[in-house]
Structures are given as structure tokens and as C-alpha cells.
């Protein structure tokens, strides 16, 4: 829409252009030193005025870009909230449905009678336990969500990544050995200490190791590799010989609530939490996989915390 100010601005431009044109013509008409000075003065004035005008234009377009960026971020946020809430609804409504049914069944048992007292008591206790289990399931989801939302400031410390990983490997190995899953270590002995938050990194490593063992199920190998990456980074690779990730799932793997585990076995928040943590630590997490050929997760962490990063 053209405003009154725009019209005035355009008129001013035309007016100034006319004056400068007349001055230029007069300067050239004189065709002597004085005339050339006038021409030079006019050209310098024009250049000065144009550059001021251009700076104003760049400023305005920058401001416009800022507003558009803000709008884009806002719409992306809304889309994420929509996706997240439908995931929460699904994950919470399923246990709620079971709780509702068990309560209904308990009401029936208390009202009807009929069966043996001890049998009825057993049935009631069973329903009660089912309710407690489903409440725990809901609690697990909400607590993970809260962890996800809570931005604990990372506390940066010099960390021996090999040692940190080895502690987690030992923990997972105890369980994995029963499934005949071997954990192979390929640690870079000269890996320098990195500056990161050890508990947060531990959480990520444990999650990735657990996922790797789960993907294998029985009989296989998880290989944990550390190495110095490009651009002053430390790389942790966790490779499994499991079922692999289908191509269509690759883009969703870090999305909240995305899971291929059966109902009640996984919340689908683990990898999205890992992604959030690694991003906050200034690193990157990625995955490579092919169906039937296992998967490799790469965690790329800066050796030093860059300025401005938490």
C-alpha cells in the first residue's frame, strides 16, 4: 500500500533529481574549469545522496528479513508443538485407556461378586498392579518430557572421553553379555581431554549403547570408536550389527515420540533428548544405516567450548 509519506518521499526524489540535472547541464554548458568543478560537485553530491539512500534501503530490507525470520521461527515452533502434542496425546492416552478399563473391571468385581472371594481378591490385585504400571508409564513420559524441556546449564569440565565411554560400556556390557552381544572398543589412545558436561555426555552415550544392544537383540557386536575429527573435534562412533534403520525412518529418527519399539517399551524420546544435549554441547549427532546392515551413530564434539556456547 502506498502511504502519504511514500508519495512525499518519491516527490522529493524527483525534485532533487531535477535540480541535480539542471546543475549538471549548467556545469557542462560553461565548459571551463568552473563548469567542471560544478559537474564534479554535482556528481559527488549524487554519489553521497545515492549511498545514503542505498544504506537506508539495505537497513529496511534487513529489518524486513528479521521480521520474516521471526515469523518463520514462530510457525516452525507452532508446527513442532503440534507434532509434539499429538505424540504426547498418543503416548498418554494408551495407558489412560488401560487404566480406565481396569477401573471398570474392578468396579464390576466389587459390584457383582459371584466368583470365589480369593479369586476375586487376586483379580482385584492384578488390576490394581496394572493401573500402577500404567501410571508409571505415564510418569516416565512426563518426566522425560520435563527433562527435555528443562534447560539445565551445562557445566563444562575437562573430560577424558575414553574413560567416560568405558564406564558406560562396562555398565551396558553386564546386560549385553546375556544376549551374546559383544562390545568391541576402538579407542584413540591420544585423544585429548575435551571441554564438555560429563553427566550430559554420559546420558547420550548410555542411550546410544542401549539402543545399539536393543537393535541387535541377540548375537552381535557393538563397536565403540573414538577418534580425533576434523575442525578440532572428538568423534565418538557407536556401530551395531542390528536390523538397521529403514530409509523412510532416517529423517524421523531424532523426532520426539518416534519409536519402532512395541507399545509401552519405548517412549521415542531417547534420541531426541540426545540430539538436544549434543546440540547444547556445541556438537553434532548423525546416523548412517542400511536395512539389515546395522547402524552407526556419530557424535562430533568440539575439543574446546567456543565463545558464546553454554
Amino acid at each position, binding site marked *: 500500500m502506498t502511504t502519504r509519506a511514500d508519495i512525499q518521499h518519491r516527490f522529493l526524489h524527483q525534485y532533487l533529481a531535477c535540480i541535480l540535472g539542471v546543475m549538471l547541464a549548467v556545469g557542462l554548458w560553461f565548459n571551463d574549469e568552473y563548469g567542471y568543478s560544478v559537474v564534479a560537485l554535482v556528481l559527488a553530491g549524487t554519489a553521497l545522496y545515492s549511498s545514503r539512500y542505498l544504506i537506508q534501503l539495505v537497513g529496511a530490507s534487513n529489518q524486513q528479513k528479521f521480521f520474516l525470520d521471526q515469523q518463520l521461527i514462530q510457525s516452525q515452533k507452532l508446527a513442532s508443538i503440534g507434532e509434539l502434542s*499429538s505424540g504426547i*496425546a498418543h*503416548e*498418554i492416552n494408551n495407558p489412560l*485407556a*488401560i487404566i*480406565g*478399563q481396569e477401573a*471398570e473391571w474392578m468396579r464390576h468385581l466389587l459390584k*457383582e461378586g459371584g466368583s470365589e472371594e480369593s479369586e476375586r481378591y487376586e483379580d482385584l490385585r492384578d488390576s490394581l498392579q496394572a493401573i500402577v504400571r500404567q501410571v508409571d508409564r505415564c510418569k516416565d513420559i512426563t518426566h522425560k518430557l520435563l527433562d527435555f524441556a528443562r534447560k539445565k546449564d551445562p557445566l563444562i569440565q575437562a573430560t577424558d572421553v575414553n574413560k567416560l565411554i568405558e564406564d558406560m560400556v562396562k555398565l551396558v556390557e553386564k546386560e549385553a553379555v546375556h544376549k551374546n552381544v559383544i562390545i568391541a572398543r576402538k579407542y584413540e589412545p591420544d585423544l585429548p581431554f575435551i571441554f564438555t558436561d560429563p553427566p550430559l555426555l554420559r546420558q547420550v552415550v548410555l542411550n546410544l549403547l542401549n539402543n545399539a544392544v536393543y537393535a541387535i537383540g541377540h548375537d552381535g557386536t557393538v563397536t565403540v570408536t573414538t577418534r580425533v575429527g576434523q575442525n578440532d573435534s572428538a568423534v565418538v562412533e557407536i556401530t551395531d550389527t542390528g536390523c538397521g534403520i529403514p530409509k523412510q525412518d532416517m529423517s524421523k529418527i531424532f523426532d520426539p515420540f518416534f519409536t519402532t519399539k512395541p507399545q509401552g517399551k519405548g517412549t521415542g524420546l531417547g534420541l531426541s533428548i540426545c540430539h538436544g544435549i549434543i546440540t547444547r554441547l556445541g556438537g553434532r549427532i548423525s546416523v548412517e544405516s542400511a536395512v539389515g546392515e546395522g547402524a552407526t551413530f556419530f557424535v562430533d564434539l568440539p575439543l574446546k567450548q567456543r565463545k558464546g556456547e553454554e
Partner: protein
Amino acid sequence: MSSGPRVLIVDDEERFRNTLRKLLAVSGVAATTAGSGEEALQELSKEGYDVILLDVKMPDMSGIEALAKIKKIAPAIEVIMLTGHACVDVAVEIMKLGGYEYLLKPCPLDDLMLKIDAAYERKLARKGKSGQSAAAAKSIQ
């Protein structure tokens, strides 16, 4: 033998399908359970059912895929879909594939019973209609 509808409950949540089966039995509805879409298809090849309660989100074969296959094998069966979250796209897909109803979990038992009864009535009405048209066709011949 019960004169009510024969119901098949398909849900990957074991506790959900077993308790629902017990609750339906109390209300006089005989129900069988299946833990996946694949199991449901096997069950359909063995037994005839009037109404299927089908979960939307299941691993391996989703409820939508199962619905398409069920409708191919036995188009007369009425299918009530159950889901943890309502989504317009899924609802549209269900209607397109011939699903009878789309219910959000947790759904009160009374509501579910009403839907099962309505679905059963519809199935009977359809059967009666096809029986009538078959008789009419016969009389014309």
C-alpha cells in the same frame, strides 16, 4: 450360542485387549483378541466376525493397512478404529477405506458398547438388504 455380535479386538497392548474382552463378555458380547494386523487376518480366515475393534498405531502392520486388507477379504465386516490421538488425515483415510467409526482412547465402555451395537445393526441391515435383493432377483427369474 450368544445371539449378539461376534467381535474381534485387534490391539498390540496385551492388557488393553484382554481386559476389554473380559468387559465385553460381562456385557454379553463374545470377543476374541489378536495382537497384530497379521494375527487378525489369520483369525478372519478361521472364523466369521461381525465387528472388529482395530487399533490404528501398531508396529509392523498399521491399523490403516490392516483395515484395507480386512475390507478386501471381508467387506461386510464393520470396523471400529481406536486410536490414542485424533488426526483429520487418519480419519479421512479410515472413512475412504470403509471404516465404520473412529474412536479416541480412552473411550468409556458405554460409548464403545453403543458403537458396537450400532455397527452390528448396520451389518445385519446390510445382510437383510442383500438377502432381500437376492430373493427379489430370484423371483424375477
